[in-house]
């Protein structure tokens, strides 16, 4: 029985890599650090899901995408997504791969530790000669910045600690 449960859990984590943030489609919910735990009891799967922002309008879409993605798995009859606020998601939870993918998408990742200074490096050329043009951007989690070296506007994820 343990082996069966173990297999489903591993498969679930693999499938979660295919669930992307609808607003940043290159990065998965796993790389964003949004999955707290995967609980499997026989064919019943519970995903403990940590929102990056409470007010994020994409939450419902992500929840639905998780359910759709996992329901197709053999041996899974029921998928439940539970929002978890404690422990709370912080910027620290974004993985190194996630940070690299954010840069590739043109978004500067937030500082990796709560005590780190919020220094915004340009995701295109790496320059630190940047300005924060608007603390608020196209989504609650993002700010708008500008690179004075390569003269590109870009977005930066707000630190959440």
């Amino acid at each position: 029985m343990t082996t069966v449960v173990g297999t489903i859990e591993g498969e679930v984590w693999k499938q979660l890599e295919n669930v992307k943030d609808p607003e940043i489609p290159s990065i998965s919910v796993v790389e964003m650090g949004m999955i707290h735990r995967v609980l499997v009891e026989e064919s019943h799967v519970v995903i403990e899901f940590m929102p990056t922002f409470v007010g994020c309008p994409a939450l419902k879409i992500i929840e639905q995408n998780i359910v759709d993605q996992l329901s197709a798995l053999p041996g899974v009859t029921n998928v439940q997504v539970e929002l978890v606020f404690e422990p709370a998601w912080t910027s620290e939870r974004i993985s190194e791969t996630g940070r690299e993918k954010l840069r590739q998408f043109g978004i500067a990742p937030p500082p990796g530790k709560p005590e780190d200074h919020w220094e915004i490096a340009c995701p295109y050329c790496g320059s630190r000669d940047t300005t924060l043009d608007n603390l608020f951007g196209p989504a609650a989690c993002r700010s708008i910045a500008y690179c004075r070296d390569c003269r590109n506007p870009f977005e930066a994820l707000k630190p959440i600690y």
Partner: protein
Amino acid sequence: MTANRLETVEQAKANPEYRTALTELLYQLADDDLVLSFRGSEWLGLAPHVEEDVAFSSITQDTMGHAAAFYGLLEGLGEGKADDLAHLREANRLRNAILVERPNGTGHYLNNPRYDWGYTVVRQYVYEIFKQERLESLTRSSFAPLAQLARKMRPEQRYHLLHWQTWFSQLANSTEEARQRIMAGVERVWTDAGGLFDLGPYGQAIVNFGLIEDGALLAERWTEKVKRAFEANSVPWPGNPQQGQLNGRAGQHTDDLKSALAELAEVYRLAPAANW
């Protein structure tokens, strides 16, 4: 707060008096954020510049998301669907403070809007300071799911506060006209701001159950912060804010709230069964 900590919705439901006090408080939290967000959304396209349109919309969207999270807790407590709670209640069922329902100015956003930016900046700023104090107190709430939610909201809310603090300080230290408009905004905001701290008819139970600290205590902390901000920007302290005739926490509201709700819920009410 020494009251027993309740870990789950089921525990809250098992104690009818606790549940009543909790739902009353949650309506206050949700309705304040919802109605102020609606007022914020009316500024879209009318804010002083395009960057402000982006920023204010983002703050408004996030704040509406906070309201949705509070309605979600109410849904869990058996109050009905979160979307219905936001859209289908009549004005006298809402528990928001009067301050957040006041119109942005005269006119309508589609028709000759003469909105008052000075009033808006002061209202948003003092509300965010209030919200920060309220969230801080809620992190120690006896209802664990609410305490957890408040802790998660805090870092987001800090960005909102920073934004309005910047506007307040820049306008108060700008031209004479900007300064006058800020002072006029303060005067108008002060006729209602006292109502924020009222915990409504179930206030005593809310405090006794350790759901949040007493409104007078929140008012004290708020006053200290706002006084310091006013001093730093040479804005004279107008004294303690008034509460006004109507008590929003008891379901008493202006006609402006009725028209705001009619507008907010217009589409939803056309087809409440529709899936959005």
